[in-house]
């Protein structure tokens, strides 16, 4: 599955790009699987996703839990806890 990933705040800074399109292996089923897969792609990803439990994931611009499937996602946002307001 090919998907667009968009990164924000310190996740974006550590991966060192705002977005990319990547091909996902079939074994990546859930949002948590995606984070574990990305973590293997290099030092920047490793630094950004060192503590995956704090990372938030949004599929097609809606929050999802890490155990939710990402099948059919067009765009997946990956970012730290939010600090607006």
């Amino acid at each position: 599955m090919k998907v667009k990933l968009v990164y924000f705040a310190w996740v974006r800074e550590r991966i060192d790009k705002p977005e990319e399109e990547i091909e996902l292996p079939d074994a990546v089923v859930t949002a948590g699987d995606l984070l574990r897969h990305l973590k293997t792609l290099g030092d920047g990803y490793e630094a950004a996703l060192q503590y995956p439990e704090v990372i938030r994931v949004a599929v097609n611009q809606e929050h999802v839990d890490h155990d939710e499937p990402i099948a059919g996602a067009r765009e997946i946002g990956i970012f730290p806890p939010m600090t607006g307001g």
Partner: protein
Amino acid sequence: MAASPTIRVQNEDFHLQTEIDRLVAGRTDIGAVVTFSGLCRDDGGSLNALELEHYPGMAEAEMRRIAELAIARFSLQGLTAIHRFGKIAPGENIVLVIAASRHRQAAFDGANFVMDFLKTAAPFWKKEHLADGSTGGWVSAKDADDKARDKWR
């Protein structure tokens, strides 16, 4: 029919009275208007500016989801939520929530609810720029904000 919220994500400043006037224009059913505005503070002079990053599209969508929950839960007559992005100096506005209802309690609760969820679920992030010219890094999320949100469950 449920009220339709006004949601804006913008770089430019907003004006409280203008937004209140827009919300209540032509309405005779509103008895209470609660306005919350969040400003950038300088933390004792150490902060030069906040840089607000957001997820374009999702920021508006999430603010709308939160606003619609508040309208349904508190039977609000009207709701406006505006969040700024970009570099914001101490003393400047960051966020505005206006809740309107028949009676005051729903408007107080509605504004409070929207802010609690906006802080924990709307995709915005603050980066500090310090007065000494350095970057203070990204603001950390606070447990107190999660607790404030959880009181509505």
